């Protein structure tokens, strides 16, 4: 991987980090309020809406173009909607509701240097590792 590739990813990460903090996604209480039908705070719908609005046209463009600036496109290959997908997503949702963290905001939250953030990220890495142990990654 070239130095330029590395820089592109760094800048993309930078935008993502600023976006997550601005949007409110890094506040677990906010996230939980979004999932709480009894006291619903719809704010975070705008995060997903804004992101899709900004991203969908570029996806369309890149599909037509067929090639990224620095190399080939790496579109995800799985197409089947199966039990594995639904089961995994269901487990993720339970963890998301319990904690108010999804992976991106969780990684950012270590910046708070709080024990809770480290506990969450440590458990998340362990959870991922455990799955890989029984179901080794394919390249």
């Amino acid at each position, binding site marked *: *991987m070239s130095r330029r590739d*590395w820089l*592109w*990813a*760094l*800048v*993309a*990460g*930078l*935008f*993502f*980090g*600023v*976006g997550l903090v*601005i949007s*409110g996604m890094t*506040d*677990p209480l906010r996230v939980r309020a979004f*999932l709480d039908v009894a006291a619903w705070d719809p704010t975070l719908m*705008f*995060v*997903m809406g*804004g*992101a899709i609005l*900004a991203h969908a046209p*570029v*996806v369309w463009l890149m599909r037509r173009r067929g*090639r*990224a*600036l620095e190399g080939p496109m*790496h579109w995800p290959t799985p*197409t089947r909607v199966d039990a*594995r*997908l639904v*089961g*995994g*997503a*269901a487990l*993720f*949702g339970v*963890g*998301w*509701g*319990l904690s108010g963290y*999804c*992976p*991106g905001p*969780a*990684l950012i939250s270590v*910046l708070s240097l709080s024990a*809770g953030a480290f*506990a*969450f990220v440590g*458990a*998340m*890495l362990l*959870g*991922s590792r455990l799955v*890989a142990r029984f179901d080794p990654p394919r*390249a």
Partner: protein
Amino acid sequence: MIHPDWLRWLHWQPSFTRALAGGVLIGTSASLLLGTLGRIAGWSGVVSSLVTPVRGHVAWRVALVVGLLLGGLAAVHFLPGSIPSFAFTPRSAALLVGGGLLVGSGTRIGNGCTSGHGVCGISRGSPRSIVATITFIGTGIATVAVMRALGLLS
């Protein structure tokens, strides 16, 4: 690239403006990654790479994390309190560790999270991502409803 004055202005905006602006930045980030490296911006994939590195998938994801942390650091400087920390009690610890295990394992089994499925996948119109997103929002809502019923939200 993101002007400090703009961040300061956002500080006084209602939360939905911030949510929308943040969302657009997230979509811009995903677009940048797709347009330059042809890659999908998914954080659960990043987590997978961190715990079980696969050749060719590590370097750009490490750069992405470094950028994420630098961006977060810059933004929180202008928007203090945006990355809150909470009292670490036995109960909150149990919720965080249990939640972390489920988020780590679930996103790996289901091949994606809020970013990979919820933003990138839906932008692509992928049926898998649409089903996954409806599923995790659904079980998330159900989980919070159960927590509310058990008095765990106070």
